[in-house]
C-alpha cells in the first residue's frame, strides 16, 4: 500500500510541514514572487508578468520611499532611546518603593493594555489644535494664545507620534529593566560600597553592566515593534500632512491597498523587513557581548 511506504518520521512531521507551508512558506514565497512582478490588485493577470528587480530599483530611486525609511529609523532611534532612559528611571524608582510595589508594577503596565488604535485616537484628540487637551492647557495657563498645529506641522506631528509611542511602550523597558534589577546579586553592590563607590558610581560600574543584557533584549523586541509602526501613525496623521509623517509601513500600506500596486508594495516591504532583521541582529550581537562581559556565556 502507498501509506506503508512513507517512513514514520515523515508521517509524524507531515502535519507540521503542512501547517508551516500553508501559514508561512506559501504567503512568503508568493509575496516575494509578486515583488518581482508589476502585480496590481485590480488586474490579476499582472501577477504573471515577470519584471525582475524593477520594483526594487524603483523603490531605491524613490525619494518618498527613502524619506519614509529615514523617518522610520529616526522614530526608532528617538523612541527607543527615550523609552530606554525613561524606563530605566521608572524601574529604578519603582525598585526603591517598598510599600505597594506590586500595585505600582501593575499600574505601570496599563498603557500596554490599550489597543494602539485607541491610543492613536486618544492622542489625536489630546493634540488636536482646536479642542485638544494640550492646546487648551497651554492657553489656559497663558503660555501661548495661538493654537499650536500639533498634528499639522511636520516636526510637531512627528513629535506627537513619538510621544504617543513612548507613552505606550516605556513600560516594556521599565518592566524588563525592573526584572533585571531584581536579578542583580547584592554582594557586588555591597563590595562596591565598601570599595568606596558613591551611589552613582555603584550604578555606573556595577548595576548598569548587569542591566545591559536586559536593556538589549528590550531594544531588540521594541525595534521590531517600532519598525513596523503603522496603527498609531495611521490614526493620528494618516502619514500626513502631505507625507510629512509617512513611515515605511504607512507608505507600504497605502501603495498596496489604496493604490493597489501590490507588487511594488511587497518589494518595499521586503526592504523594510531586511532593515528590521538588521536591527535585530545588531541588538543581538550587543546582547551577546554584554552577556559575555558578565561571564554568562553564549546563548
Amino acid at each position, binding site marked *: 500500500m502507498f501509506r506503508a511506504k512513507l517512513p514514520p518520521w515523515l508521517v509524524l512531521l507531515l502535519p507540521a510541514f503542512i501547517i508551516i507551508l500553508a501559514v508561512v512558506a506559501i504567503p512568503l514565497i508568493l509575496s516575494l514572487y509578486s515583488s518581482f512582478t508589476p502585480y496590481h490588485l485590480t488586474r490579476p493577470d499582472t501577477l504573471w508578468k515577470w519584471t525582475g528587480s524593477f520594483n526594487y530599483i524603483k523603490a531605491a530611486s524613490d525619494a518618498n520611499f527613502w524619506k519614509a525609511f529615514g523617518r522610520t529609523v529616526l522614530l526608532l532611534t528617538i523612541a527607543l532611546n527615550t523609552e530606554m532612559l525613561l524606563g530605566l528611571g521608572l524601574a529604578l524608582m519603582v525598585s526603591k518603593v517598598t510599600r505597594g510595589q506590586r500595585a505600582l508594577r501593575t499600574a505601570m503596565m496599563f498603557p500596554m493594555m490599550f489597543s494602539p488604535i485607541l491610543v492613536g485616537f486618544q492622542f489625536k484628540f489630546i493634540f488636536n489644535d482646536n479642542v485638544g487637551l494640550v492646546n487648551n492647557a497651554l492657553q489656559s495657563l497663558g503660555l501661548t494664545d495661538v493654537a499650536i498645529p500639533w498634528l499639522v506641522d511636520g516636526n510637531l506631528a512627528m513629535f506627537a507620534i513619538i510621544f504617543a509611542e513612548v507613552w505606550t511602550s516605556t513600560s516594556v523597558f521599565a518592566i524588563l529593566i525592573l526584572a533585571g534589577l531584581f536579578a542583580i546579586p547584592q554582594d*557586588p553592590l555591597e*563590595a*562596591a*560600597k565598601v*570599595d*568606596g563607590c558613591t551611589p552613582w558610581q555603584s550604578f555606573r560600574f556595577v548595576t548598569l553592566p548587569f542591566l545591559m543584557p536586559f536593556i538589549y533584549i528590550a531594544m531588540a523586541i521594541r525595534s521590531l515593534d517600532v519598525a513596523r509602526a503603522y496603527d498609531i501613525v495611521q490614526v493620528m496623521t494618516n502619514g500626513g500632512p502631505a507625507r510629512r509623517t509617512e513611515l515605511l509601513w504607512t507608505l507600504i500600506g497605502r501603495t498596496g491597498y489604496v493604490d493597489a500596486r501590490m507588487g511594488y508594495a511587497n518589494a518595499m516591504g521586503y526592504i523594510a523587513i531586511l532593515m528590521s532583521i538588521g536591527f535585530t541582529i545588531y541588538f543581538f550581537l550587543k546582547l551577546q557581548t554584554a552577556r559575555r562581559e*558578565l*561571564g554568562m556565556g553564549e546563548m
Partner: protein
Amino acid sequence: MAQVQLKNVVKKYGALGVVHGVNLDIAEGEFVVLVGPSGCGKSTTLRMVAGLEDITGGDIVIGDRVVNDLPPRERNLAMVFQNYALYPHMTVRENLGFSLKIAKKSQPEIDRAVDEAANILSLTPLLDRKPGALSGGQRQRVAMGRAIVRQPEVFLFDEPLSNLDAKLRTQMRVEIKKLHQRVGSTVIYVTHDQIEAMTLADRIVIMRDGHIVQVGTPLQVFENPVNTFVATFIGSPPMNLLDGTVQAGQVVLADGTTIPLPPGLHIADGRRVQFGVRADNIMPEGHALPPTAHMAFVDMAVTLTEPLGTETLLYATLAGTEIQAKMLNPRPVSPGETMRFGVALDKCHIFDADTGLNLRG
C-alpha cells in the same frame, strides 16, 4: 591602622533584636576573631562596622571618629565577603584595581599596587581572566587581593574560608596570618570555625544570641571558659560535662561514682554542678601524660575508638554520659574493654548546673 570601638551597639530588625548591646575595644593592629554558632549576630556586627547595616543604638568608633552615620566609603576599611562578591564583568586585574580607580589614583600607581597584590597571592597568571573562569580558591584569593590593594586601616573578613576545602583552608589561614604580620592593619574576622579562631586570633570574642559571652586570648578562653557554652564551643573535641552533686569536697555522679573537686575549689554540699574535663585531661593509665599532683582515677568501658595516628580518641561511658578521652602511644583497644583512666583534676572545671557559669571564675 586604627582602633575600633563598639559601644553598647544594638541592632534590631523591627521588634526583633539581633545584637543586644555589644561592647568591644579593638586595639590598633589587633587581630580579633568573632566566633559563635550560626545566627548569633556575627555577620550583623561586622556589617554594622562596615556601614552596610544601620545601627539601631550605640556608637561605633573607628580611629577617633564616630562613624555611625558615615557611609562605607568614608570609613576606610576593606571587607572580604563570605561568597567573594567579585565583580563578574571585570577581569581579575580590574577587580583588584577597582577601589583605586574609584579613588582616582593614577594608572601607574594602580598597576603597581595590583601587581604587588597579585604577586603576594600568586594571582599573576590569572590577571586577565574573569571571575567566572576561576576556581573557588582562586576567587577567594582575588577577594583577598581586592582588600589588600586598598591598604585600609581596618580589614573585615566574613567567613572568608568557609567555601574552601580543608587543605586550601589551612593554606589560606597561614596566608592571612602572614598578611596581618606584614601590613599590621586592624583585623576583625568572623568565623564559626573554632580552629580558625584559635589559630588566627590575638583575641577571641565568643558570641551567642546577640551577646558577647567571653573575650580573651585563645589560651584564656580555652583554659578558663566562663561557662559551659564556651567550654563546649572552644576546643576540639568539646569539653566533656558530667552532671553531679557536691558532697564533702567531691562530685557525686549519677551512678554514685565520686571525683574529687579540682584543687582550690570550695563548694557547699548539695549543690548541683557539672564536672567539666577535656579529652586531653582524661587518659588511660599507661597511655597518658606524666601524672600531676592532683589525679583521680575512674574505671570506664570503652565503646568506640577513633585512631588519629599519634593518638586515639576513645569514647567511653561514665555515669550514663558518653565522654571522649585521649590515648597517647595508642595500642589496639577492643570495644567493651574496661580501662582505668587518670583525670588531671587541676585542669578540670566545675560549672553551676543551673546557670552554666564556671565556679572557678
